[in-house]
């Protein structure tokens, strides 16, 4: 696990090694900062201190007004764009949308991506050492809610000297955090970009999450969550959990187009006893196995619980209009037609609530066969819309700077 302790934000390295794409942010280095507590959590418990690992891309301007915060989804982390080394096979998880000339243009914006509290990529979480016991937190790590992430992200903004984000951006669970930002810190963001998200999960969504958690906890190696202390790992359970999740991130159509009923091995021939293996089986197993060797099972449980808990309007008398009435920023929403995990209907509910609350919002329903995963993947319409919106955010940003004022009146 990567842990590099630097306390100051550093500009990304300029020189791009040959071999990396020209529109990449290039080689990036994670940074981390430890925040002194006490940090009170929504569950009532308090962390004495916590560490967040993050990456930044682009340059923070003189009045620190061009910051864009990227909130990650269930299995995301701080490595959203660029490469960690020249030999890196894959760039960060949202590299297609973050970089020079890309929708979140690092020539214009100072982009901050972090690993959320409770994560397993270097930020304080279940794999960290509990200072009280000297052992890994494991299942004793306090349950978190989206608002805990938002409050810790606000402390990160303070640390970076960013009083107000040009935009807070997130897909899926990341979109939930972005919306929570708009309600908890209305003065600290000018735009809220919410992609393939929802104001709360449906019963079906919670059911999938519970099945995934059961897969993990019923693995004999789970050991009540104390697998690190006992030097085991419920690898199989986590792989199954990921397989379940993965199916829900894709569409029936998308899976069909990609794999159909193609065989990887075996035969249907009569008189030959050789079991068939469909391509989709091996694909899913590969996804599960890859994930289970890089993700912490307790973190997966923690993240899915945070998803289940999220209900934007809960403390606003269950009235989304009342909730959004607190927002002062403009909203941009995108959903994808074949996404059944965070269906377009969920985004329309957000758009409706925002319009009722008289908050500026634009919403597009993008045609895609890729299911929920579409928000991470190339798609010409999505890219053009996203770029056009962010371009205005940047242009407005320049206008704001020349006018010398920060606030603006929503249309």
């Amino acid at each position, binding site marked *: 696990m990567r842990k590099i302790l630097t306390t100051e934000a550093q500009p990304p390295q300029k020189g791009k090694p040959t071999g990396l794409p020209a529109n990449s942010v290039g080689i990036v280095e994670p940074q981390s900062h430890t925040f002194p507590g006490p940090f009170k959590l929504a569950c009532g418990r308090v962390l004495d201190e916590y560490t967040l690992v993050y990456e930044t891309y682009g340059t923070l301007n003189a009045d620190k007004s061009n910051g864009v915060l990227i909130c990650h989804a269930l299995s995301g982390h701080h490595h959203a764009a660029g490469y960690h080394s020249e030999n890196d096979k894959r760039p960060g998880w949202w590299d297609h949308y973050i970089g020079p000339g890309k929708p979140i243009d690092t020539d214009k914006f100072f982009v901050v991506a972090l690993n959320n509290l409770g994560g397993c990529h270097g930020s304080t979480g279940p794999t960290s050492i509990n200072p009280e016991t000297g052992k890994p937190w494991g299942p004793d790590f306090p349950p978190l809610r989206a608002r805990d992430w938002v409050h810790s992200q606000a402390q990160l903004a303070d640390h970076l000297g960013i009083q107000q984000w040009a935009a807070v951006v997130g897909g899926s669970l990341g979109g939930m955090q972005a919306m929570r930002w708009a309600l908890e810190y209305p003065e600290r963001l000018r735009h809220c970009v919410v992609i393939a998200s929802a104001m709360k999960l449906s019963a079906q969504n919670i059911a999938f999450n519970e099945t995934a958690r059961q897969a993990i906890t019923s693995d004999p190696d789970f050991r009540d969550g104390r697998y690190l202390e006992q030097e085991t790992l419920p690898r199989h359970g986590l792989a199954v959990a990921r397989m379940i999740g993965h199916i829900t991130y894709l569409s029936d159509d998308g899976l069909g187009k990609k794999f159909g009923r193609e065989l990887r091995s075996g035969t249907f021939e009569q008189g030959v006893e050789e079991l068939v293996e469909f391509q989709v089986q091996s694909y899913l197993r590969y996804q599960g196995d890859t994930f289970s060797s890089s993700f912490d099972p307790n973190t997966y449980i923690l993240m899915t619980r945070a998803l289940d808990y999220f209900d934007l309007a809960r403390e606003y008398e269950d009235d989304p209009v009342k909730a959004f009435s607190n927002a002062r920023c403009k909203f*941009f929403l995108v959903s994808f037609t074949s996404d059944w995990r965070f269906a377009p209907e969920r985004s*329309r509910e957000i*758009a*409706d609530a925002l*319009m*009722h609350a*008289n908050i*500026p*919002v*634009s*919403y*597009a*329903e993008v*045609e895609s066969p890729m299911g929920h995963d579409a928000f991470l993947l190339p798609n010409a*319409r999505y890219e*053009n*819309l996203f770029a*056009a*919106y962010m*371009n*205005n955010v940047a242009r*407005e940003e320049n206008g704001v700077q020349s006018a010398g004022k920060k606030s603006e009146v*929503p*249309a």
Partner: protein
Amino acid sequence: MMRKDLDIIHNWIAPSTRVLDLGCGDGALLERLGKEKQVGGYGLEIDPEEIQKCVERGVNVVEQNLDNGLKNFADQSFDTVVMTQALQTLRFPHLVVEEMLRVGRECIITFPNFGQWKARWHLAVSGRMPVSDLLPYEWYDTPNIHFCTFKDFEVLCREHSWKILHRQVVSESPVSGVLKDFLPNLFGETAIYHLTR
């Protein structure tokens, strides 16, 4: 260039009010209303290319199919609901106008006049459905499925007891521009109606 009907609508909308623009196209009207009259609001559109243009202009646009109604909007939640050149594309135009008057205190509707002399001439002489610069489609591929004339629309207003606050007829050609005042249903190209309940 701004269409003439948009100029007139611009004049009829009071400053600092709230507008919902159905089938808002590229967002030109909303942008102008926002800049010149501090009018806020939203456009509804289903064409991806038009939505893209709205986002580029910084106009609030929401992807929504008008044929599915305006159920997601509360009664009297807008000052004015506008619909330009879209009435004839709807499956149930009269129901949409009802909805517009439920959601808005007033509504402004523009539509092409099928009773204009060119259309009448085309049908009378060639015996075929009119195709013109303004309505450049063949009958089988046209999005315009419910044409009407000014007279037809006035009848609809009467039947539903919708009050006509203003009506205006516009025509792009200078000759028709004069004649339309005398014989609007024969020489007017586009009708603009300002309605309330």
